[in-house]
Protein backbone atom coordinates (compact mmCIF):
# COMPACT_ATOMS: atom_id res chain seq x y z
CA UNK A 1 0.00 0.00 0.00
CA UNK A 2 0.99 3.64 -0.45
CA UNK A 3 1.29 6.05 2.51
CA UNK A 4 -2.21 7.37 1.80
CA UNK A 5 -3.71 3.87 1.66
CA UNK A 6 -2.03 2.80 4.90
CA UNK A 7 -3.30 5.84 6.81
CA UNK A 8 -6.83 5.40 5.47
CA UNK A 9 -6.84 1.66 6.25
CA UNK A 10 -5.72 2.35 9.82
CA UNK A 11 -8.48 4.94 10.25
CA UNK A 12 -11.25 2.76 8.87
CA UNK A 13 -10.48 -0.36 10.89
CA UNK A 14 -9.29 -2.34 7.89
CA UNK A 15 -6.13 -4.30 7.15
CA UNK A 16 -6.02 -2.95 3.64
CA UNK A 17 -7.86 -0.56 1.35
CA UNK A 18 -7.59 -0.05 -2.37
CA UNK A 19 -8.30 2.89 -4.70
CA UNK A 20 -11.96 3.46 -5.47
CA UNK A 21 -13.18 1.86 -2.24
CA UNK A 22 -15.67 3.86 -0.14
CA UNK A 23 -14.76 3.98 3.54
CA UNK A 24 -15.83 5.73 6.70
CA UNK A 25 -12.66 7.15 8.23
CA UNK A 26 -12.14 8.29 11.81
CA UNK A 27 -10.79 11.83 11.87
CA UNK A 28 -8.04 13.25 14.10
CA UNK A 29 -8.62 16.93 13.34
CA UNK A 30 -11.70 18.72 11.99
CA UNK A 31 -10.95 22.29 10.92
CA UNK A 32 -13.00 25.23 9.68
CA UNK A 33 -12.58 29.00 9.31
CA UNK A 34 -14.52 32.27 9.23
CA UNK A 35 -15.84 31.61 5.72
CA UNK A 36 -16.77 27.94 6.07
CA UNK A 37 -17.56 27.49 9.78
CA UNK A 38 -20.78 29.55 9.85
CA UNK A 39 -22.39 27.10 7.39
CA UNK A 40 -20.81 24.12 9.19
CA UNK A 41 -22.25 25.31 12.50
CA UNK A 42 -25.68 25.83 10.91
CA UNK A 43 -25.65 22.29 9.46
CA UNK A 44 -24.25 20.85 12.72
CA UNK A 45 -27.26 22.26 14.52
CA UNK A 46 -29.56 20.76 11.88
CA UNK A 47 -28.08 17.32 12.57
CA UNK A 48 -29.39 17.79 16.07
CA UNK A 49 -26.59 16.58 18.33
CA UNK A 50 -25.68 18.75 21.27
CA UNK A 51 -21.92 18.49 21.46
CA UNK A 52 -19.07 17.92 19.06
CA UNK A 53 -17.66 14.37 19.17
CA UNK A 54 -14.39 15.48 20.80
CA UNK A 55 -13.65 19.16 21.54
CA UNK A 56 -9.88 18.55 21.43
CA UNK A 57 -10.15 17.42 17.81
CA UNK A 58 -12.27 20.29 16.52
CA UNK A 59 -10.39 23.44 15.56
CA UNK A 60 -11.87 26.76 14.46
CA UNK A 61 -10.27 30.06 13.71
CA UNK A 62 -10.98 33.19 11.74
CA UNK A 63 -8.16 34.01 9.33
CA UNK A 64 -9.65 34.99 5.98
CA UNK A 65 -11.38 38.29 6.71
CA UNK A 66 -9.87 39.18 10.11
CA UNK A 67 -9.13 41.44 11.84
CA UNK A 68 -12.76 41.96 10.76
CA UNK A 69 -12.77 43.81 7.45
CA UNK A 70 -16.45 44.83 7.58
CA UNK A 71 -19.64 44.32 9.54
CA UNK A 72 -20.65 41.15 7.72
CA UNK A 73 -17.30 39.48 8.37
CA UNK A 74 -17.47 40.58 12.00
CA UNK A 75 -20.81 38.78 12.28
CA UNK A 76 -19.30 35.62 10.79
CA UNK A 77 -16.31 35.71 13.15
CA UNK A 78 -18.73 36.16 16.05
CA UNK A 79 -20.58 32.96 15.11
CA UNK A 80 -17.30 30.99 15.40
CA UNK A 81 -16.26 32.63 18.64
CA UNK A 82 -19.58 31.90 20.32
CA UNK A 83 -19.71 28.31 19.09
CA UNK A 84 -16.10 27.76 20.20
CA UNK A 85 -16.86 29.03 23.72
CA UNK A 86 -20.02 26.99 23.99
CA UNK A 87 -18.33 23.76 22.81
CA UNK A 88 -14.92 24.27 24.40
CA UNK A 89 -13.14 23.41 21.15
CA UNK A 90 -9.66 24.53 20.09
CA UNK A 91 -9.93 28.16 19.02
CA UNK A 92 -7.48 30.93 18.16
CA UNK A 93 -8.46 34.58 18.59
CA UNK A 94 -6.95 37.53 16.72
CA UNK A 95 -3.64 38.14 18.46
CA UNK A 96 -2.87 34.42 18.71
CA UNK A 97 -4.23 33.26 15.42
CA UNK A 98 -2.34 32.84 12.20
CA UNK A 99 -3.17 31.60 8.73
CA UNK A 100 -4.59 28.17 9.56
CA UNK A 101 -2.23 26.08 7.43
CA UNK A 102 0.85 27.83 8.78
CA UNK A 103 -0.45 27.82 12.36
CA UNK A 104 -1.57 24.22 12.88
CA UNK A 105 1.75 22.56 11.97
CA UNK A 106 3.68 25.23 13.88
CA UNK A 107 1.60 24.51 16.99
CA UNK A 108 2.11 20.76 16.59
CA UNK A 109 -1.64 20.19 16.21
CA UNK A 110 -1.21 18.04 13.09
CA UNK A 111 1.09 15.02 13.20
CA UNK A 112 2.17 12.13 10.95
CA UNK A 113 -0.39 9.42 10.30
CA UNK A 114 -3.37 11.68 11.04
CA UNK A 115 -6.52 11.91 8.99
CA UNK A 116 -7.31 15.61 8.90
CA UNK A 117 -10.25 17.22 7.20
CA UNK A 118 -10.74 20.93 6.86
CA UNK A 119 -13.33 23.17 5.26
CA UNK A 120 -10.60 24.88 3.33
CA UNK A 121 -9.17 23.48 0.14
CA UNK A 122 -5.57 24.04 1.24
CA UNK A 123 -5.97 21.63 4.17
CA UNK A 124 -3.80 19.32 2.05
CA UNK A 125 -0.81 21.34 3.37
CA UNK A 126 -0.44 18.91 6.31
CA UNK A 127 0.66 16.17 3.93
CA UNK A 128 4.10 17.71 4.45
CA UNK A 129 4.25 16.06 7.89
CA UNK A 130 3.03 12.72 6.53
CA UNK A 131 -0.65 13.16 7.41
CA UNK A 132 -3.58 12.38 5.12
CA UNK A 133 -5.14 15.83 5.00
CA UNK A 134 -7.82 16.97 2.62
CA UNK A 135 -10.19 19.84 1.99
CA UNK A 136 -13.94 19.36 2.18
CA UNK A 137 -17.04 21.50 2.48
CA UNK A 138 -18.95 22.84 5.43
CA UNK A 139 -21.55 20.06 5.55
CA UNK A 140 -18.80 17.43 5.62
CA UNK A 141 -17.29 19.29 8.57
CA UNK A 142 -20.68 19.42 10.30
CA UNK A 143 -21.13 15.68 9.91
CA UNK A 144 -17.60 14.94 11.15
CA UNK A 145 -18.03 17.31 14.12
CA UNK A 146 -21.11 15.29 15.07
CA UNK A 147 -19.78 11.76 14.52
CA UNK A 148 -15.97 11.89 14.39
CA UNK A 149 -16.08 10.10 11.06
CA UNK A 150 -16.33 11.01 7.40
CA UNK A 151 -17.06 9.16 4.17
CA UNK A 152 -14.21 9.00 1.73
CA UNK A 153 -13.29 7.33 -1.50
CA UNK A 154 -9.76 5.91 -1.35
CA UNK A 155 -7.75 7.80 -3.97
CA UNK A 156 -5.19 6.29 -6.31
CA UNK A 157 -1.68 7.66 -5.67
CA UNK A 158 0.55 9.31 -8.26
CA UNK A 159 4.24 9.35 -7.32
CA UNK A 160 6.39 12.33 -8.29
CA UNK A 161 10.14 11.74 -8.09
CA UNK A 162 12.51 14.71 -8.16
CA UNK A 163 16.18 14.08 -8.99
CA UNK A 164 19.15 16.41 -9.00
CA UNK A 165 20.31 19.60 -7.36
CA UNK A 166 17.95 22.57 -7.43
CA UNK A 167 19.14 25.75 -9.16
CA UNK A 168 19.71 28.99 -7.28
CA UNK A 169 16.42 30.70 -6.22
CA UNK A 170 14.47 27.50 -6.88
CA UNK A 171 12.25 26.40 -3.98
CA UNK A 172 9.35 24.10 -3.20
CA UNK A 173 7.08 26.66 -4.92
CA UNK A 174 8.90 26.16 -8.19
CA UNK A 175 8.78 22.36 -7.92
CA UNK A 176 5.04 22.43 -7.41
CA UNK A 177 4.33 25.11 -10.04
CA UNK A 178 6.46 23.13 -12.51
CA UNK A 179 4.48 19.99 -11.64
CA UNK A 180 1.09 21.71 -12.07
CA UNK A 181 2.33 23.30 -15.30
CA UNK A 182 3.22 19.82 -16.52
CA UNK A 183 0.14 17.82 -15.50
CA UNK A 184 -2.48 20.59 -15.54
CA UNK A 185 -5.03 21.83 -13.00
CA UNK A 186 -6.86 18.50 -13.16
CA UNK A 187 -3.77 16.36 -13.72
CA UNK A 188 -4.14 14.67 -10.34
CA UNK A 189 -7.94 14.89 -10.05
CA UNK A 190 -9.28 12.71 -7.17
CA UNK A 191 -5.74 11.35 -6.60
CA UNK A 192 -3.17 11.56 -3.83
CA UNK A 193 0.19 12.97 -4.89
CA UNK A 194 3.27 11.53 -3.22
CA UNK A 195 6.43 13.65 -3.51
CA UNK A 196 9.74 11.86 -3.21
CA UNK A 197 13.30 11.60 -4.52
CA UNK A 198 16.74 12.99 -3.66
CA UNK A 199 15.74 16.64 -4.27
CA UNK A 200 12.76 16.27 -1.94
CA UNK A 201 15.01 14.76 0.78
CA UNK A 202 17.06 17.97 0.58
CA UNK A 203 14.02 20.24 0.64
CA UNK A 204 13.26 22.11 3.90
CA UNK A 205 10.04 21.55 5.82
CA UNK A 206 8.84 25.01 4.79
CA UNK A 207 9.43 24.05 1.15
CA UNK A 208 7.48 20.83 1.66
CA UNK A 209 4.52 22.70 3.19
CA UNK A 210 4.47 24.91 0.09
CA UNK A 211 4.38 21.90 -2.23
CA UNK A 212 1.73 19.97 -0.29
CA UNK A 213 -0.33 23.18 -0.06
CA UNK A 214 -0.74 23.41 -3.82
CA UNK A 215 -1.57 19.73 -4.47
CA UNK A 216 -5.21 20.84 -4.69
CA UNK A 217 -4.22 23.14 -7.55
CA UNK A 218 -3.62 19.96 -9.58
CA UNK A 219 -7.04 18.67 -8.49
CA UNK A 220 -5.54 16.30 -5.91
CA UNK A 221 -7.21 15.11 -2.74
CA UNK A 222 -3.94 15.07 -0.79
CA UNK A 223 -0.22 15.71 -1.26
CA UNK A 224 2.02 13.53 0.88
CA UNK A 225 5.64 13.35 1.94
CA UNK A 226 7.34 10.52 3.78
CA UNK A 227 8.45 11.26 7.30
CA UNK A 228 12.24 11.63 7.51
CA UNK A 229 14.79 13.13 9.90
CA UNK A 230 13.78 16.66 8.91
CA UNK A 231 10.16 15.91 9.75
CA UNK A 232 11.12 14.37 13.07
CA UNK A 233 13.30 17.37 13.93
CA UNK A 234 10.45 19.70 13.04
CA UNK A 235 8.03 17.78 15.25
CA UNK A 236 10.35 17.54 18.22
CA UNK A 237 9.18 19.84 21.03
CA UNK A 238 6.19 20.68 18.86
CA UNK A 239 3.95 17.64 18.37
CA UNK A 240 1.08 17.76 20.86
CA UNK A 241 0.26 14.07 20.47
CA UNK A 242 2.15 10.80 19.94
CA UNK A 243 2.01 9.72 16.31
CA UNK A 244 2.46 6.80 13.95
CA UNK A 245 4.70 6.95 10.90
CA UNK A 246 3.49 5.10 7.80
CA UNK A 247 5.91 4.17 5.04
CA UNK A 248 4.90 3.15 1.54
CA UNK A 249 5.46 -0.56 0.86
CA UNK A 250 8.20 -1.49 -1.59
CA UNK A 251 5.55 -3.03 -3.83
CA UNK A 252 2.99 -0.24 -3.37
CA UNK A 253 0.90 0.30 -6.48
CA UNK A 254 0.95 3.75 -8.04
CA UNK A 255 -1.45 4.92 -10.71
CA UNK A 256 1.51 6.66 -12.32
CA UNK A 257 5.14 7.52 -11.56
CA UNK A 258 6.36 10.86 -12.93
CA UNK A 259 10.05 11.78 -12.75
CA UNK A 260 11.52 15.27 -12.95
CA UNK A 261 15.06 16.54 -13.30
CA UNK A 262 15.08 19.20 -10.60
CA UNK A 263 18.33 20.65 -11.92
CA UNK A 264 16.55 21.75 -15.10
CA UNK A 265 13.72 23.55 -13.27
CA UNK A 266 14.04 27.35 -13.26
CA UNK A 267 12.05 29.62 -10.95
CA UNK A 268 8.48 29.44 -12.28
CA UNK A 269 5.85 32.12 -12.83
CA UNK A 270 2.19 31.12 -13.34
CA UNK A 271 0.53 33.60 -15.69
CA UNK A 272 -3.17 34.51 -15.46
CA UNK A 273 -5.59 32.85 -15.06
CA UNK A 274 -4.56 29.33 -14.06
CA UNK A 275 -1.82 27.98 -11.76
CA UNK A 276 -0.89 25.61 -14.60
CA UNK A 277 -0.11 28.49 -16.97
CA UNK A 278 3.57 28.46 -16.01
CA UNK A 279 6.68 29.85 -17.66
CA UNK A 280 10.29 29.68 -16.49
CA UNK A 281 11.54 33.09 -15.32
CA UNK A 282 13.86 33.38 -18.34
CA UNK A 283 10.84 33.44 -20.64
CA UNK A 284 8.62 35.86 -18.75
CA UNK A 285 9.51 38.98 -20.75
CA UNK A 286 8.64 42.50 -19.63
CA UNK A 287 5.63 42.26 -17.28
CA UNK A 288 5.15 45.44 -15.24
CA UNK A 289 3.49 45.07 -11.85
CA UNK A 290 1.53 47.29 -9.45
CA UNK A 291 1.70 45.06 -6.39
CA UNK A 292 3.78 42.30 -4.83
CA UNK A 293 2.29 40.05 -2.15
CA UNK A 294 4.61 37.94 -0.01
CA UNK A 295 2.78 35.67 2.43
CA UNK A 296 -0.23 33.28 2.54
CA UNK A 297 -0.67 29.63 3.54
CA UNK A 298 1.60 28.81 0.61
CA UNK A 299 4.58 31.09 1.38
CA UNK A 300 4.06 32.86 4.72
CA UNK A 301 6.70 30.94 6.70
CA UNK A 302 9.99 32.10 8.15
CA UNK A 303 12.11 30.69 5.32
CA UNK A 304 9.97 32.63 2.83
CA UNK A 305 10.47 35.87 4.78
CA UNK A 306 14.21 35.18 5.05
CA UNK A 307 14.50 34.96 1.27
CA UNK A 308 12.50 38.17 0.86
CA UNK A 309 14.63 39.96 3.51
CA UNK A 310 17.89 38.82 1.91
CA UNK A 311 16.77 40.37 -1.38
CA UNK A 312 15.14 43.53 0.01
CA UNK A 313 18.03 44.45 2.33
CA UNK A 314 19.55 47.83 1.31
CA UNK A 315 17.04 48.04 -1.53
CA UNK A 316 13.93 50.15 -2.16
CA UNK A 317 10.56 48.93 -3.34
CA UNK A 318 9.89 50.43 -6.77
CA UNK A 319 7.90 53.68 -6.66
CA UNK A 320 5.19 52.13 -8.82
CA UNK A 321 4.73 49.06 -6.61
CA UNK A 322 2.89 48.36 -3.36
CA UNK A 323 4.80 45.58 -1.64
CA UNK A 324 2.74 43.88 1.10
CA UNK A 325 4.36 41.31 3.35
CA UNK A 326 2.23 39.14 5.62
CA UNK A 327 3.86 36.77 8.13
CA UNK A 328 1.74 33.61 8.40
CA UNK A 329 1.50 33.51 12.19
CA UNK A 330 2.35 35.58 15.25
CA UNK A 331 5.30 33.25 15.87
CA UNK A 332 6.61 33.81 12.32
CA UNK A 333 6.09 37.57 12.84
CA UNK A 334 8.03 37.54 16.11
CA UNK A 335 10.86 35.47 14.69
CA UNK A 336 11.08 37.81 11.67
CA UNK A 337 11.30 40.71 14.11
CA UNK A 338 14.04 39.05 16.16
CA UNK A 339 16.03 38.40 13.03
CA UNK A 340 15.62 41.99 11.81
CA UNK A 341 13.55 41.15 8.73
CA UNK A 342 10.66 43.41 9.66
CA UNK A 343 12.99 46.40 9.85
CA UNK A 344 14.46 45.49 6.47
CA UNK A 345 10.96 45.31 4.97
CA UNK A 346 9.84 48.63 6.41
CA UNK A 347 13.07 50.42 5.47
CA UNK A 348 12.67 49.07 1.93
CA UNK A 349 9.21 50.63 1.77
CA UNK A 350 7.08 47.51 2.16
CA UNK A 351 3.89 47.31 4.22
CA UNK A 352 3.88 44.58 6.88
CA UNK A 353 0.61 43.18 8.21
CA UNK A 354 -0.71 41.03 11.02
CA UNK A 355 -1.45 37.47 9.80
CA UNK A 356 -4.43 37.15 7.43
CA UNK A 357 -5.38 35.35 4.22
CA UNK A 358 -6.57 38.81 3.11
CA UNK A 359 -5.37 39.62 -0.39
CA UNK A 360 -4.97 36.04 -1.65
CA UNK A 361 -8.71 35.76 -2.19
CA UNK A 362 -9.40 39.44 -2.81
CA UNK A 363 -10.68 39.88 0.73
CA UNK A 364 -8.77 42.86 2.06
CA UNK A 365 -5.19 44.13 2.56
CA UNK A 366 -4.30 44.40 -1.12
CA UNK A 367 -7.37 44.14 -3.37
CA UNK A 368 -6.63 44.99 -7.04
CA UNK A 369 -8.37 47.60 -9.20
CA UNK A 370 -9.25 47.15 -12.87
CA UNK A 371 -6.18 46.84 -15.06
CA UNK A 372 -3.80 46.22 -12.15
CA UNK A 373 -1.30 43.38 -11.90
CA UNK A 374 0.14 41.63 -8.88
CA UNK A 375 2.99 39.19 -8.51
CA UNK A 376 2.08 37.02 -5.57
CA UNK A 377 3.44 34.11 -3.56
CA UNK A 378 -0.14 32.84 -3.10
CA UNK A 379 -1.70 29.80 -4.75
CA UNK A 380 -4.43 30.90 -7.18
CA UNK A 381 -4.63 33.34 -10.06
CA UNK A 382 -8.18 32.75 -11.28
CA UNK A 383 -10.19 35.58 -12.87
CA UNK A 384 -11.02 38.13 -10.16
CA UNK A 385 -9.21 36.17 -7.45
CA UNK A 386 -7.48 39.24 -5.97
CA UNK A 387 -10.08 41.85 -6.84
CA UNK A 388 -11.37 43.23 -10.13
CA UNK A 389 -12.22 40.67 -12.81
CA UNK A 390 -10.04 42.84 -15.03
CA UNK A 391 -6.97 42.52 -12.80
CA UNK A 392 -4.21 39.93 -13.13
CA UNK A 393 -2.33 37.72 -10.67
CA UNK A 394 1.02 36.08 -11.40
CA UNK A 395 2.19 33.36 -9.01
CA UNK A 396 5.81 32.92 -7.99
CA UNK A 397 8.18 32.10 -5.15
CA UNK A 398 9.18 34.77 -2.59
CA UNK A 399 12.54 35.49 -4.30
CA UNK A 400 10.87 36.45 -7.56
CA UNK A 401 8.16 38.43 -5.74
CA UNK A 402 10.77 40.40 -3.76
CA UNK A 403 12.96 41.08 -6.81
CA UNK A 404 9.89 42.13 -8.80
CA UNK A 405 8.88 44.56 -6.04
CA UNK A 406 12.26 46.27 -6.42
CA UNK A 407 12.38 46.34 -10.21
CA UNK A 408 8.69 47.09 -10.87
CA UNK A 409 8.40 44.18 -13.28
CA UNK A 410 8.53 40.41 -12.90
CA UNK A 411 12.21 39.65 -12.50
CA UNK A 412 14.83 37.32 -11.06
CA UNK A 413 16.94 38.46 -8.10
CA UNK A 414 19.93 37.95 -10.40
CA UNK A 415 18.92 41.15 -12.20
CA UNK A 416 19.32 43.31 -9.10
CA UNK A 417 22.52 45.32 -8.98
CA UNK A 418 24.02 45.79 -5.53
Amino acid at each position, binding site marked *: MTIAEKILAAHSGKDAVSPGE*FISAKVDVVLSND*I*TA*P*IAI*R*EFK*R*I*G*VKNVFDPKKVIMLSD*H*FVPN*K*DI*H*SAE*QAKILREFAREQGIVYFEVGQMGIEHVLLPEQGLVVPGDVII*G*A*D*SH*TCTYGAVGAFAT*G*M*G*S*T*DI*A*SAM*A*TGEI*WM*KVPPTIKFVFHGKAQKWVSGKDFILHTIGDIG*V*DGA*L*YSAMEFTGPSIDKLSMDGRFTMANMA*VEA*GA*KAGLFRVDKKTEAYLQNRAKRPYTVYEADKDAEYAQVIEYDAASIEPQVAFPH*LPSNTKPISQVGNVKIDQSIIGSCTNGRIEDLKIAADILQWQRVNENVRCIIIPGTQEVYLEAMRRGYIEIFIRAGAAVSTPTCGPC*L*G*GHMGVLAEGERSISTTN*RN*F*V*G*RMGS*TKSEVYLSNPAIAAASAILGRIASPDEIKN
Partner: protein
Amino acid sequence: MKLKGKVFKYGANVDTDVIIPARYLNVSEPEELANHCMEDIDAEFISKVQPGDIIMGTTNFGCGSSREHAPLAIKTAGVSCVIAKSFARIFMRNSINIGLPLLECEEAVEKTVAGDILEVELASGEIVNSTKNLVFHAKPYPVFMLELVSAGGLVEYTKRKIANEGK
Protein backbone atom coordinates in the same frame (compact mmCIF):
# COMPACT_ATOMS: atom_id res chain seq x y z
CA MET B 1 -37.16 12.75 -10.51
CA LYS B 2 -37.29 14.47 -13.88
CA LEU B 3 -35.52 17.78 -14.37
CA LYS B 4 -36.04 20.09 -17.32
CA GLY B 5 -34.45 23.35 -18.30
CA LYS B 6 -32.45 25.50 -20.64
CA VAL B 7 -28.66 25.10 -20.81
CA PHE B 8 -26.13 27.75 -19.74
CA LYS B 9 -22.84 26.50 -21.16
CA TYR B 10 -19.32 27.37 -20.02
CA GLY B 11 -15.83 26.01 -20.69
CA ALA B 12 -13.15 24.14 -18.75
CA ASN B 13 -12.03 24.77 -15.15
CA VAL B 14 -14.99 26.91 -14.07
CA ASP B 15 -13.63 27.79 -10.64
CA THR B 16 -15.41 28.57 -7.40
CA ASP B 17 -14.11 32.16 -7.51
CA VAL B 18 -16.21 32.87 -10.60
CA ILE B 19 -19.16 30.81 -9.34
CA ILE B 20 -19.31 32.91 -6.17
CA PRO B 21 -16.57 35.55 -5.78
CA ALA B 22 -14.89 35.73 -2.36
CA ARG B 23 -15.98 39.34 -1.94
CA TYR B 24 -19.47 37.96 -1.23
CA LEU B 25 -18.34 35.30 1.23
CA ASN B 26 -18.77 37.58 4.22
CA VAL B 27 -22.33 36.26 4.33
CA SER B 28 -23.68 32.71 4.28
CA GLU B 29 -27.40 33.17 3.56
CA PRO B 30 -28.23 31.11 0.43
CA GLU B 31 -30.45 33.81 -1.12
CA GLU B 32 -27.76 36.49 -0.87
CA LEU B 33 -25.19 34.15 -2.35
CA ALA B 34 -27.53 33.23 -5.20
CA ASN B 35 -27.83 36.90 -6.19
CA HIS B 36 -24.15 36.81 -7.22
CA CYS B 37 -24.06 33.33 -8.72
CA MET B 38 -21.73 33.09 -11.77
CA GLU B 39 -21.27 36.89 -11.63
CA ASP B 40 -17.60 36.91 -12.64
CA ILE B 41 -18.00 34.58 -15.61
CA ASP B 42 -21.46 35.63 -16.81
CA ALA B 43 -22.83 38.86 -15.35
CA GLU B 44 -26.24 38.27 -16.99
CA PHE B 45 -26.70 34.76 -15.65
CA ILE B 46 -28.70 35.66 -12.59
CA SER B 47 -31.17 37.84 -14.52
CA LYS B 48 -31.69 35.15 -17.16
CA VAL B 49 -31.81 31.91 -15.16
CA GLN B 50 -35.22 30.27 -14.71
CA PRO B 51 -36.12 27.56 -12.18
CA GLY B 52 -35.03 24.20 -13.56
CA ASP B 53 -32.31 25.53 -15.85
CA ILE B 54 -29.10 23.59 -16.22
CA ILE B 55 -25.46 24.65 -16.03
CA MET B 56 -22.99 22.83 -18.24
CA GLY B 57 -19.19 22.91 -18.12
CA THR B 58 -16.50 20.81 -19.77
CA THR B 59 -13.69 19.47 -17.54
CA ASN B 60 -12.84 20.09 -13.86
CA PHE B 61 -16.01 22.08 -13.12
CA GLY B 62 -15.93 23.70 -9.67
CA CYS B 63 -12.17 23.68 -9.16
CA GLY B 64 -10.56 25.88 -6.52
CA SER B 65 -11.74 26.52 -3.03
CA SER B 66 -13.80 24.32 -0.71
CA ARG B 67 -16.55 26.92 -0.37
CA GLU B 68 -19.88 25.14 -0.16
CA HIS B 69 -21.27 28.57 -1.01
CA ALA B 70 -20.63 27.67 -4.68
CA PRO B 71 -23.07 24.76 -5.09
CA LEU B 72 -25.38 26.49 -2.59
CA ALA B 73 -25.51 29.62 -4.78
CA ILE B 74 -26.15 27.50 -7.89
CA LYS B 75 -28.88 25.46 -6.21
CA THR B 76 -30.60 28.48 -4.67
CA ALA B 77 -30.51 30.32 -8.01
CA GLY B 78 -32.92 27.64 -9.20
CA VAL B 79 -30.53 25.49 -11.22
CA SER B 80 -31.77 21.89 -11.29
CA CYS B 81 -28.47 20.15 -12.04
CA VAL B 82 -24.95 20.65 -13.39
CA ILE B 83 -23.63 18.53 -16.25
CA ALA B 84 -19.93 18.34 -17.11
CA LYS B 85 -17.27 16.00 -18.44
CA SER B 86 -15.63 16.02 -15.00
CA PHE B 87 -15.97 17.79 -11.65
CA ALA B 88 -13.40 18.97 -9.12
CA ARG B 89 -13.62 16.69 -6.10
CA ILE B 90 -14.57 19.07 -3.29
CA PHE B 91 -17.26 20.67 -5.47
CA MET B 92 -18.60 17.19 -6.19
CA ARG B 93 -18.74 16.25 -2.48
CA ASN B 94 -20.36 19.54 -1.56
CA SER B 95 -23.01 19.27 -4.27
CA ILE B 96 -23.98 15.73 -3.33
CA ASN B 97 -23.96 16.63 0.36
CA ILE B 98 -26.39 19.51 -0.13
CA GLY B 99 -28.56 17.87 -2.80
CA LEU B 100 -27.47 19.59 -6.02
CA PRO B 101 -27.42 16.81 -8.63
CA LEU B 102 -24.29 16.52 -10.79
CA LEU B 103 -24.02 14.42 -13.93
CA GLU B 104 -20.84 13.40 -15.72
CA CYS B 105 -21.50 12.93 -19.42
CA GLU B 106 -18.92 13.68 -22.08
CA GLU B 107 -21.22 13.15 -25.05
CA ALA B 108 -23.95 15.43 -23.71
CA VAL B 109 -21.41 18.20 -23.23
CA GLU B 110 -19.99 17.77 -26.73
CA LYS B 111 -23.35 17.75 -28.51
CA THR B 112 -25.21 20.40 -26.52
CA VAL B 113 -25.00 24.16 -27.02
CA ALA B 114 -26.16 27.04 -24.85
CA GLY B 115 -29.92 27.48 -24.98
CA ASP B 116 -30.75 23.83 -25.77
CA ILE B 117 -33.50 22.32 -23.65
CA LEU B 118 -32.56 19.20 -21.70
CA GLU B 119 -34.67 16.69 -19.80
CA VAL B 120 -32.80 14.70 -17.19
CA GLU B 121 -33.93 11.53 -15.44
CA LEU B 122 -31.75 11.34 -12.33
CA ALA B 123 -32.35 7.73 -11.37
CA SER B 124 -31.34 6.35 -14.76
CA GLY B 125 -28.92 9.12 -15.73
CA GLU B 126 -30.72 9.59 -19.03
CA ILE B 127 -30.29 13.03 -20.58
CA VAL B 128 -32.59 13.99 -23.46
CA ASN B 129 -31.71 17.01 -25.58
CA SER B 130 -35.20 17.86 -26.79
CA THR B 131 -33.96 20.75 -28.94
CA LYS B 132 -31.76 18.42 -30.99
CA ASN B 133 -33.66 15.18 -30.36
CA LEU B 134 -30.66 13.36 -28.91
CA VAL B 135 -30.35 10.97 -25.97
CA PHE B 136 -27.28 10.61 -23.74
CA HIS B 137 -26.41 8.50 -20.70
CA ALA B 138 -24.52 9.95 -17.74
CA LYS B 139 -22.05 7.93 -15.69
CA PRO B 140 -24.04 6.22 -12.92
CA TYR B 141 -23.37 7.22 -9.30
CA PRO B 142 -21.53 4.69 -7.14
CA VAL B 143 -23.91 2.83 -4.78
CA PHE B 144 -22.72 4.73 -1.69
CA MET B 145 -23.32 8.11 -3.31
CA LEU B 146 -26.79 7.00 -4.41
CA GLU B 147 -27.54 6.23 -0.76
CA LEU B 148 -26.43 9.72 0.20
CA VAL B 149 -28.50 11.32 -2.53
CA SER B 150 -31.60 9.28 -1.74
CA ALA B 151 -31.25 10.07 1.97
CA GLY B 152 -31.57 13.73 0.96
CA GLY B 153 -27.97 14.75 1.53
CA LEU B 154 -25.33 14.34 4.21
CA VAL B 155 -27.20 16.00 7.08
CA GLU B 156 -30.12 13.57 6.74
CA TYR B 157 -27.74 10.67 6.18
CA THR B 158 -25.83 11.57 9.36
CA LYS B 159 -29.07 11.91 11.34
CA ARG B 160 -30.07 8.39 10.28
CA LYS B 161 -26.63 7.02 11.07
CA ILE B 162 -26.72 8.51 14.55
CA ALA B 163 -30.25 7.19 15.12
CA ASN B 164 -29.21 3.70 13.98
CA GLU B 165 -26.26 3.69 16.33
CA GLY B 166 -28.66 4.60 19.11
CA LYS B 167 -26.60 7.54 20.28
